[in-house]
């Protein structure tokens, strides 16, 4: 495939063509034009390169007109003839205006965030910054709305929708009662009730909410008692320290009680007839 013709070269070719027209040619062969363009390009490049050299030689970064003149001189051209050429020959053709270069449009669907404008030290012609997510951060979702009211609102609606969907489904898939006499369009269907045996189980073991196991076993009183006990114990200890002799006894007593309690609580030795093993029929006869 033919490579995209260079824009500058295209312009150069246009300039050569207009010059040829000035000289009186009507047409030009493609090869001739190409050669002329090539020559012209080589000439300009050479001139520019020489000018740059002179400029650098003079310790500058940007060439001035004198550098260009020196470049021409170096090339063996009379710089002054350029002016006369410009004045004498009537230039009929001008270069076509440069086509507005359409910058490659970003696909809008991929746009995320607003692009940052170029800072002042960067020339405006340079390409714009890419989308911020490409180099600053990448937000994967919208920032949540965190004001209380809408959160509650949303949660409420969500919960209700869920419940509605569930009840609607259940009502559609099972028998229903109708509150109205007409059969058509039961807008308020009631799911028919079915007896469940034993009825107390579902009532006493509700399923409408799931509680933490600690809630289900929560015993505020025992906590208070525990705190008090600790408190009392601490107090007793202080007292015992103050009164040396009777204090020891107290503490011993306390310890004794405690050990007894803990033993009881372990439940290893509960003497309850309902926990005892069933006797064999023979045993009774013996006893």
């Amino acid at each position, binding site marked *: 495939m033919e490579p995209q013709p260079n824009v500058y070269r295209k312009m150069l070719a246009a300039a050569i063509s207009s010059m040829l027209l000035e000289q009186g040619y009507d047409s030009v062969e493609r090869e001739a034009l190409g050669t002329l363009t090539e020559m012209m390009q080589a000439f300009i490049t050479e001139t520019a390169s020489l000018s740059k050299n002179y400029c650098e030689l003079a310790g500058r970064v940007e060439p001035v007109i004198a550098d260009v003149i020196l470049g021409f001189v170096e090339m063996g051209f009379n710089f002054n003839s350029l002016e006369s050429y410009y004045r004498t020959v009537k230039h009929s053709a001008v270069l076509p205006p440069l086509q507005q270069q359409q910058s490659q449009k970003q696909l809008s669907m991929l746009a995320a965030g607003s692009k940052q404008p170029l800072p002042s030290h960067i020339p405006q012609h340079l390409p714009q910054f890419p989308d911020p997510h490409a180099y600053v951060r990448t937000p994967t979702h919208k920032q949540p709305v965190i004001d209380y009211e809408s959160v509650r609102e949303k949660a409420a609606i969500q919960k209700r929708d869920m419940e509605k969907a569930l009840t609607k489904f259940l009502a559609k898939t099972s028998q229903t*009662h109708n509150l109205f006499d007409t059969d058509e369009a039961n807008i308020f269907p009631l799911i028919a009730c079915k007896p469940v045996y034993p009825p107390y*189980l579902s009532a006493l073991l509700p*399923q409408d909410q799931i509680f933490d196991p600690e809630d289900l076993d929560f015993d505020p009183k025992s906590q208070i008692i525990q705190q008090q006990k600790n408190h009392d114990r601490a107090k007793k200890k202080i007292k015992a320290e103050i009164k040396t002799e009777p204090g020891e006894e107290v503490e011993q007593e306390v310890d004794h009680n405690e050990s007894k309690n803990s033993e009881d609580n372990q439940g290893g030795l509960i003497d309850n007839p309902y926990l005892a093993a069933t006797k064999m029929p023979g045993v009774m006869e013996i006893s």
Partner: protein
Amino acid sequence: MKKERTGDNCRPFKLAHQIVSLTGISFERKSIIGFVELTVVPLRDNLRMVKLNAKQCRIYRVSLNDHYEAHFQYFDPFLDVCQSDTDTRSLDAFSSHHLAAALKVDPDNSSGELVVTIPPEAAHLVAEGTALRVGIEFSLEQSEGGIHFVVPPKEGSYAERGVHLFTYGHQNSSRLWFPCVDSFAETCTWKLEFTVEDELTAISNGDLNEVVYTPDMRRKTFHYSLNVPTCAPNISLAVGPFEIFVDPYMHEVTHFCLPSLLPLLKVTTRYMHEAFEFYEETLSNRYPYSCYKQVFVDETHEDYRSYATMSILSVNLLHSAVIIDQVYITRKAMAQAIAEQFFGCFISMQNWSDVWLNKGISQYLCGLYCKKSFGNNEYRELIQSTLQDVVKYEEEFGGIVLDPSQPPAPLPVGGNAPQPNQKHCEEKFYFPTRNLHTMSPMYIDTLLKKALLVMRMLEHRIGQELLLQVFNKQLSLATNAAQQKIGSGLWGHMLISTNVFTKAIFTVTGKDMAVFIDQWVRTGGHAKFHLTSVFNRKRNTIELEIRQDATTSLGIRKYVGPLLVTLQELDGTFKHNLQIENTVVKADITCHSKSRRNKKKKIPLCTGEEVDMDLTSMDDSPVLWMRLDPEMTLLRSVVIEQPDYQWQYQLRHERDVTAQMEAIVALERYPTPQTRLALTDTIENEQCYYKVRCRAAHCLTKVANAMVSNWAGPPAMLAIFRKFFGSFAAPHIIRQNNFQNFQHYYLQKNIPLAMAGLRNTHGICPPEVIRFLLDLFKYNDNSKNRHSDNYYRASLVEALGQTITPVVSVVAQGTPITAESLSADTKLILEEITRLLNLEKALPCYKYTVSVACLDAIRKLQKFGHLPSRPTLFKSYAVYGHFIDVRLAALECLVDFVKVDGKWDDLQYVLDILENDPDPGLKHKLANLLIKHPPFKRAHRGKLDIPELVERLWTNINCMLSHDSRLRCDLVDLYYTLYGTKRPVCIPLLELAGIIDLGKYEPAAKRPKLATIPKRAASPPAPVKEVPQQVVMETVEYVDLEVVAGEEKVEKEEEVMDIKVESPVLQKQDYFSDNSVSLPGMGQSGPVGFEPGMFKKDGEKHKTDSSGKIKKKKKDKKKHKHKHKHKHEHKHGKDKEKKEKDPNKLRLKEETLSSMSSTPSPNGMSLGSTETI
């Protein structure tokens, strides 16, 4: 009569020991085969008959000392209460028959259903003080009462199905499941054995000695022994696949529950040991038994029932730790059951009429425990509401006599002897109050409440410490007696009676309480005071007037004695003890403080605190408020008249919750901005008792509705609610639920409910309130809560129901109601209700509280015309197999439906449930619902007032409910509510009875088992009364016999006489009522409408007494009727007894209910096997 006849000495024998052995317990056939052996010690050498109690048992054999076979007879008068009287449909007549029937089998009347005759060949076994063993083999098939088999119709093992059984009964009803002496006064030691299948546990009274496998290893026998003398009504049994939980604090205590409920059981019984400790400490006496068992079973007769060493409680008392409301009820029930272990089980009573003592003491103790654990406010509120209940019942039905066994001692001073008044008091109920099995359950409930109040009054009279010492003494005596053998004769100490108790008080305290007992225990009724006051500015006195106007009205009597009046003045609280001697007492009380409106000074209250008050609204009088008998030391109702600002001060500043409650009730009548402010401040006051705050909210509803025309601002309480429960950022959105603060929890439940009662000028609920309620539903969020919100949600649904007002009919009358014709608000409400009800199917909440509220709301929508009124929905929820609360709610709706626009079919549906439902507790509650919402008003000629209903109810009370006296008495209540005590109007007169067949309704079709009830057999439905054949069996001795022939005639003659005697009385009555100034609406006794039986009576009188007074007031007639009844009571009874013994009829019965089969006993040997104890 030196020695009075009491429950413990009326029998010619004593019971020493009893063995109960149930071997064949079958859940499939719901039957039991068993054996009992009573060791009887005759008190006479010539004892020829042993009368025992047994009901619905089939008795195979009665043996004496294992060797002799004894003849026996069995009869149950409750199978046909009015034997000879086939046509009477009046409660007046039924009442006397009912009592006679009850007395005929009352063990305390030395009678029983089962009469064992000692054969002559065994006569030598009988000797005074020598033990005689009476063994009885029996079986129980398809029992209808006394023992309840719960067998859910489901597949699976016993444990999976939750199959179990337990015994229950109304008062003394142990006879329903084993033969015994069913008296509270007959105590003995027990040996109990139950053989059950391997996976089941049998729980009974006393110590479990051992559990032994049967030889085939498939069943096991539980051996219990109870060495503390105990009466038969306190014996019980529960069998089932129970989970066993030994109390971690007290290893003697064991809890049992049905499978998969163990976690709930652990939570529920967590603090039970505290009740034990409390009682032991309070009574300074140890728990009298060696063990205690709590069994939670389904379908109970009542919430709890205490038996010796065990109590049977409803499974519905169980709750998890996230439930709030149920905890109070459950703890109280358990504490009450334990208190009854001391008084009720360990200490029994001498007569049933002493029931008030045991119940009163145990409730009093339980009250003390509640005071300790729930607080003084709760306790005072309980006492106040109990007092109100008693007052309400007494004013409706008549004064309750706690102990009717003995009349109060006549007053020593002559004066206007209240004796005739007394007579009047005694028998004015429509049911006999002389036997436990004939009394209305409502009456018994109220009696027990009154017992608590009287016990508390005693506490005030002699002091708590001394009263507890009296209890302690009773317990110590009983403990001592319990360790003795029967020979010591000390077992009587285990029985309590009014006399024994009075004596005990005297010995302990030195105070003679006989007058108190006469006044409050042996006399019925309560006092009613009316207090008015005028301030005398010149003398700076307040002139009080206390009137007792209504002393002649029902249930109210005159009070004479001291009365405390408390005046709160500017300078403090001052108590004044006034002596009440007359119906009008005036007292001038000098005020301690001068009126000083402008001085700023703190005002001291009765508690000693000093508070600032805004005194601007005060009048000249320095009295801020007045109270009468503030400590509730009397049985009284009080009407105090004081201006509204005084009530407002009382509400704001009086510290006593009962005073605050009274103020709230009074303020309903003063809808002013000041009242509004006082109520609002009360609701917001965090220091205030939560029930007062809730009550204030409901009162504010009424005040706001009365002020609706000039009410400014948002609906009442909206701001308060938002302030308490609105979220911080958005006050219109309720916070996430957090029920840690119980006061707030109850407020949060009650304020929406109160707001739902608000109405705008159009009489409808303001739309913003409805929106507010719907928002509460929407934003309800319980996810972060530690407690369940099911009760809260239920109260929101209830609130939605409250907003409903009668439909404003847009569509023309008669067009069917469709979903489209609903108003927008109604649609929203209905949507909410249906959603919640449907959600409960998938995610049920605790006890289905939301479903219950939804059903109620739907009924309300129907009732107010928003929905077509249909019973189908409720019928499907009322079916057996739903949770009992749901069923009850559905039944309530059904009963309401029947009342409003029910047909006979619907009523029949309800009655079918009432008769046939498997759950005995539900039947009782259903009966109560019917009584509360009767299908039609008496004497209003309702659609359902038809003879079929009369017949159906009558058949039930007359012969269908021998096994459940509570339900029978419930139905008597219902009958009374519908027809009064006279013959129902819809039943044609006797003269016409030949035309319309009275026996149309045949219950035989329903229960073929009872098809051969003697009544039907004996008397064809004919108007001619047959004089029954008198055949008296020789075996039964009855003291006096009268000729009963020509009974009808005698009756009529006496009627004539009565009328003549009565006429002067009538005039007196008129004179009396003219003279006394009574409040409007009080003491109205004239007939208001047509009364059932009115015409009939008149007709009779015309016939019999040509010169008789035609115009007679209903009251007098009633009186006359009573007298009449008394005279005949005896005769009727005898008549029936004779009939009872008619051999033909007995045989009829034998086929169905009992067996008289006495296979001739072959054994006439072994004579010397008597034992001496």
